[in-house]
């Protein structure tokens, strides 16, 4: 995710193979191979032999393979990223904060509940966007998450990962949390 696109510092990068683009082309090609291999493992009943469940998957695999090769050729000829995009080095610290927030959110949402996981996500993302006021972000994030949580529970009847914070508040105001 923190891949740098091509060699940004080299002014002649246009004519040289572009690494970022090549990796993407290779990725598409790899997806084609996986798709091909997975398509062949789908059992085909003779009743549907004419256009069975593998025909469209195989066509998709072929298309992805062709496109992957075309992308690799493009990458070999210097890539397609605009000069403007090439000149930008992604802000890795910012990306890392956002990714950390997402990972922590997945890890915690089951055990700690939606509000706590969301508050941590909120703080991490805000931090990634350059906010330094962690306490304020945490309070806003918690309020936002609680409003969203009860909004979903009451209007849509969907229960999203309640933890002890949600249960405590539901107990306090006597709301049946679904």
């Amino acid at each position, binding site marked *: 995710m923190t891949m740098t696109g091509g060699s940004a510092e080299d002014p002649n990068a246009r004519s040289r193979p572009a690494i970022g683009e090549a990796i993407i082309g290779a990725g598409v090609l790899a997806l084609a191979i996986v798709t091909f291999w997975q398509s062949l493992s*789908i059992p085909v009943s003779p009743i549907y032999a004419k256009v069975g469940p593998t025909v469209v998957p195989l066509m998709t695999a072929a298309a992805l393979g062709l496109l992957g090769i075309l992308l690799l050729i493009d990458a070999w000829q210097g890539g397609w990223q605009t000069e403007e995009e090439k000149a930008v080095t992604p802000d890795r610290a910012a990306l890392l904060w956002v990714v950390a927030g997402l990972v922590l959110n997945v890890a915690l949402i089951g055990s700690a509940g939606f509000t706590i996981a*969301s508050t941590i*996500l909120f703080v991490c993302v*805000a931090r990634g966007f350059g906010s330094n006021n962690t306490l304020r972000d945490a309070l806003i994030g918690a309020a936002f998450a609680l409003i969203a949580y009860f909004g979903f529970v009451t209007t*849509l009847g969907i229960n999203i990962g309640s933890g002890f914070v949600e249960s405590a508040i539901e107990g306090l105001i006597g709301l049946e949390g679904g």
Partner: protein
Amino acid sequence: MDAFSELLNGFAVALTPMNLLWCLVGTTLGTAIGVLPGLGPALTIALLLPITFKVESTAAFILFAGIYYGAMYGGSTTSILLNTPGESATIVTALEGNKMARNGRAGAALATAAIGSFVAGTIGTLGITFLAPVVVDWALRFGPADYFSLMVFAFVTVSAVLGSSAVRGLATLFFGIWLGLIGVDLQTGQARFTFGLAELLDGINVIVVAVGLFAVGETLYVASRYRLGKDEIVPLSGSLWMTAEEWRRSWKPWLRGAAIGFPIGAMPAGGAEIPTFLSYYVERKLSAKPQEFGKGAIEGVAGPEAANNASAAGVLVPMLTLGLPTSATAAIMLSAFQSYGINPGPLLLQSQPQLVWGLIASLFIGNVMLLVLNLPLIAIWVKLLQIPAPLLYAGILVFATIGTYGITQSPVDLILLYLIGGAGYLMRRYDFPVAPVIIGMILGPLAEQNFRQAMTISAGDWTVFFTRPLSATILALAALALFGPKLYQLAVRPKPDHVPGDA
């Protein structure tokens, strides 16, 4: 006159207090998300898809249509005041609109955008009213082979014609088709590409994909370059009342914009970018003062804004009459139809007249609401632009999590959401269009279904797609669309880069 009486029935549906309320909620929400950078109608409607389990179909579609139209109005405000187009379709508006705002004529730019949107939106909705029954008559003759060819045509146009590169557009399209293949094949009951995960048997939810691409991917992309530059909000300036000269210079571009936007939107090619660019070039050609273009020419705001809204209306024609979505937002609306068990297509007008005509009538009403929301109340929306980016994007990600985790409470969905978000980030960074993923994912399974039906009817004869005259014609057009863009790109430059909240 038949359409007219049907439309009157539609007004009876749309004017009930509850439906008016849904329309108001939709248009208000749509304007808000249109104004906010990083949020778009596709993402918002995807997040709201769970209401299809709670709310009856007419109300839900009135809400969605309000969001769809509202986002077009709201997007222009952001383009004019922030120079960061809120929607891909409002890139052109930023060219002249932001210059006008910097020259102290923000009021006039916002007014001509809003009134132009209203005029063109109303003309476009009238266009739907009278064109939809005609298309339906024609589409009733379609067999599965013709449908399949039509979908191939739509695939080509949305991925190869609209983007900057046919190869990259088709790559994301096939990625979307691949995502759509995941799960149990409904005809044979075989699991495809599930990699042994029980969670994937039902397929990947479109909410996960749309939210991953438009919310997570977008946030990662903005985060990766946020500190590089600050957008500057131009304060509201100048009267919202246009002068006589501004009216005189605006009304023709509005009408021309509508005339350009609606037909292009209504073609099974879709996309609001081509009509807005086309309108811009037409206005610059026809202008008595072409030297003002690039410095804040009001025609350059009035025409493209009208074209944008008229094409948004046009996109609804193939969606409602053929079940053919040509934008990410329309694709997500199609999945809302599917979640009600309704199949959009030529029979929709007969089987669900309440829904279709109620929806169309609500578009007329929504346009009036949007004019009021976006002119007298403009100051409220400008306040939204002042939400600090850290809080805005943190909020977007928390909401994205709720929307996804709320469906199944499965961590697998969250992991998928973030993986697709990562893919979305790479697509943005490496100039891959995102909308074809959604369209491929929704339309792919339908194309496969029609393909297999056609093949079953023809007893396995592949030539059926080339021997039926209609199907052959459409496939020929698709081939033309695939190889024609090279010529088109030579004629129309410059091409837009990437834009947040691509609709």
